[in-house]
């Protein structure tokens, strides 16, 4: 999937993946896609809930050998 920006949040524990995602998202335009890489197991449920409450769209997610990848479209 094509992303406008990539955020590497691997190795970061909660709450940092969301804190960084949020910061990056603020600098992006509506409709742009952010790709996020994370290893924190709680990141998935939290990113889904965060995207929903912020009006963003979780386009897809994937898990590959302990690394989660998410694609979120800014709302």
């Amino acid at each position, binding site marked *: 999937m094509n992303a406008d920006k990539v955020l590497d949040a691997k190795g970061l*524990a*909660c*709450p*940092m993946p*969301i*804190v960084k995602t*949020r910061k990056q998202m603020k600098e992006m335009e509506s409709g742009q896609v952010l790709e996020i890489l994370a290893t924190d*197991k*709680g990141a998935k*449920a*939290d990113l889904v*809930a*965060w995207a929903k*409450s912020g009006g963003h769209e979780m386009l897809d997610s994937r898990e590959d050998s302990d690394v989660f990848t998410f694609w979120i479209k800014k709302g």
Partner: protein
Amino acid sequence: MTVTAMTASEVAKKVVNDQPLFILDVRNGDAFADWKIEGGNIQYLNTPYFDLLDGVEEVVSELPTDRDILVVCAKEGSSIMVAEMLSEEGVQAAYLQGGMKAWSEHLEPVKVGELSNGGELYQFVRLGKGCLSYMVISEGEAAVVDATRMANIFLDFAQEKGATIKHVFDTHLHADHISGGRAIAEATGATYYLPPKDAEGVVFEYAALENGLEVAIGNSKLEIEAVYSPGHTIGSTSFIVDSKYLLTGDILFIDSIGRPDLAGLAEDWVGDLRESLYSRYQDLANELIVLPAHFMIIDELNEDGSVAKKLGDLFKENHGLNISDEQEFRDMVTKNLPPQPNAYQDIRKTNMGQITPDDEIQREMEIGPNRCAVR
């Protein structure tokens, strides 16, 4: 600014003593709805940490000033952040050390009774998950029943009591939590018993736990007797300890009964469950004190924090023991069941020794409530 930590043990004392506490749970809404710290005198507010990143002003007005405030999250990171933000706003709040993971693993040992010749029976209450384990101690020897994954707690407790663990039992192959039985047996050289009918997929050596098995603890032959009582699983076995206590495993709880579906055979096992509850248990003395392997709600705790009640009282009060119509009973235990425990199939495989996940993954597998009962 520094904020103070509250340990799972301190929270457990508050729950058992029914002391007031206000919990600001900053996990996401689904996680909070699924599983939280339960207590009779706890008030809650659930606001996810990611909604507080711009500031905590909006929750400050909702926090009480007359009771302790505890910020809770999954592992502690976010709760420290929120507690620090509250502190900057002049609100004194502690965070739960280790988060819900630590809460899930905390065990509170409660003495449930004196046995013959100075023996003692302890119940280990896992408040965060509703699991109950047991240790019978007599004359320097001990037996452990339904131990949880945190094997060291049992090993340390036995050592503190000057007892050597000789026998380790699991009443059945657990589906909601990872058993510490095998690890305790390996560390002490004790015999590890499992019901053979539950153990067909087990890949390690074990001793057969079968109906009528009698084991003596200590010189005075304090006895533990096995009573086959299938239904939650096909091998489920209860124990009578010192002719006084009935350890029911996941067959009978205080305010509910076991569910027959966690090994995928609800229709086959419902008849066994009925026979165990309505026939085998009916033949036992009403004076026996029932000690189950779980509780579901905090109301099932006695004032001293133990979970125990006379069998005779349960025959009168437990709804699951008072359904005369067999079809109605069948429907209750096979239809409208609560969701199955988190990762229950992998937990069963781990307990059979088929897979050996690392500690971190084992912890994740056990997240959430136990859900072994139907009401």
